[in-house]
């Protein structure tokens, strides 16, 4: 059978790829998708550790993560839409109202 550590390693790689995507992409929607990648990497780590520990508690946590991610996606996309209506742009550099 497959060692659980392979899954754990894959989750680390996915998390780092999500961070890279977050930093090199410029539009808000793709940055948001990168956050989803990171959340999924965390889910994979939880499920791998649930398997290693032999307890379903880790899988229950993943339920909650998926639910919160869905709520976050709904609100986040609404905010992105609102920003786009006001500024006609979704580039991250254009959001600089707080910049001195």
């Amino acid at each position, binding site marked *: 059978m497959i060692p659980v550590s392979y899954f754990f390693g894959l989750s680390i790689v996915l998390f780092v790829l999500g961070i890279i995507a977050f930093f090199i992409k410029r539009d808000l929607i793709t940055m948001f998708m990168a956050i989803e990648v990171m959340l*999924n990497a965390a*889910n994979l780590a939880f499920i791998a*550790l649930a398997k290693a520990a032999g*307890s379903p508690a880790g899988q229950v946590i993943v*339920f909650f993560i998926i639910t919160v991610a869905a709520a976050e996606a709904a609100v986040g996309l609404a905010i992105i839409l609102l920003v786009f209506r006001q500024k006609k742009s979704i580039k991250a550099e254009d959001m600089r109202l707080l910049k001195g």
Partner: protein
Amino acid sequence: MGIFLFSLLAILCVGGVLGLILSRNQAHSALFLVLAFASLGGLFGLLDAPFIAAVQIIIYAGAIMVLFIFVIMMINLEQGIAPERKRWTLGLSAVLAVFLLIELGLAVRGTLGALGRTGGESIGDPKELGRLLFTDYLYPFEITSVLIIAALVGAIVLVKKKEKE
């Protein structure tokens, strides 16, 4: 057999995320992400979590990504996608990412060997998960429903167009 499936799904998953990074079109990025999430669902299945695998594919690859694609459709960018950041930022982020990868690897190195292997008795039985959700995790479950209602109402209120007076 198992290791073959794992490698296939892992390559699809990492390839999907790489496609997200390399593609300049947001719609293509979203579709690559659907591929990555679907193969991640397969990986969950390999880890004895069949119910989570189904939830992953239905909710993540289905519902959430459709939401993303709808928003991409509504934000119709006339000027096209802007070019990437400057070269040195790309290089710097690549170097920092490699450092982060090494750091995370070192942090979990001690535990990796002790994790054991897949197989053995099943833990992801939907019946057991449902029982846990409605007994030990009842309060988080109920709070999550309040959170969802709040998010739903918040999203609708945010996006609703102001009525003209």
